[in-house]
């Protein structure tokens, strides 16, 4: 029976640390912030959860097992929220997608304030086309808020 436990734990350890290592490798290799976020939020949280599951199986007493399972649930609940918040913040502020991206329906729905009619038509043409021009959005970036405005809110 202990042999069974040892084998299961060993597999969980190997799997979890492999997933974490691949997430870290993806963090270095992938081209932009949003694709990196895929790697960190999925493979990273799955890897840490697998290691915590190994800890839950390893511990003999009930409270420790329950705490490890609670840690897994907590971790799986918070990891997507922080990824979501970071993506939303950096998109709102105006960090661009990778130039090789094929689609951006989010900026279509939020036309830049102050864009003239001619510009908005070219905006339409642009989005029916295939390529994304990163310099295009760089020109019409949303201005960062001022401290005084933030205080008023």
């Amino acid at each position, binding site marked *: 029976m202990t042999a069974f436990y040892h084998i299961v734990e060993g597999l969980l350890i190997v799997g979890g640390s492999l997933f974490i290592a691949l997430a870290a490798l993806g963090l270095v290799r992938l081209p932009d912030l949003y694709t990196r976020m895929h790697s960190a939020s999925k493979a990273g949280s799955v890897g840490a959860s697998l290691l915590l599951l190994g800890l839950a199986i390893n511990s003999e007493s009930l409270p420790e097992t329950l705490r490890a399972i609670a840690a897994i649930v907590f971790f799986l609940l918070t990891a997507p929220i922080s990824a979501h918040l970071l993506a*939303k913040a950096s998109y709102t*502020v105006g960090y661009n997608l990778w130039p090789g991206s094929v689609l951006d329906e989010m900026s279509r729905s939020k036309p830049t304030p102050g864009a003239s009619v001619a510009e908005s038509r070219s905006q339409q043409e642009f989005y029916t086309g295939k390529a994304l021009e990163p310099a295009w959005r760089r020109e019409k970036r949303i201005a960062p808020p001022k401290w005084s405005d933030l205080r008023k809110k």
Partner: protein
Amino acid sequence: MIEEYAKLFYEYAVDFGLVLLGLSFLLTTVRIIIGPTLPDRVLGLDMLTSVSIGFIALIGINTGFTLYVDIAIALGLVGFLATTAFSRFILARGQSGDEDSLESLPFRDPQGKSSHGTRGEWGR
């Protein structure tokens, strides 16, 4: 017989896992150092928390000292709050300092006569 092999496999798995986790600490730190923008670095810190939680769990398995679970939970909470706070900071700060000039930074007055530090101080 099979018990011995299982134990051997388990011990090798722990060593292998420690090596891989150390490697991922290194790779994440590389991203934090070279990361061209602030959100990249924040993402690196978030990832560093996940790696640390995994590391703590592995140490807990290895030593059998299960009080480490509490540390993992606390670290997860702190990491989540840190990422949330950093996201708020990114929202408040705007994109300045990464590729733009620093004209729009709230700490600078429009004339450019800054009283709080220079470009180098706030730029990175």
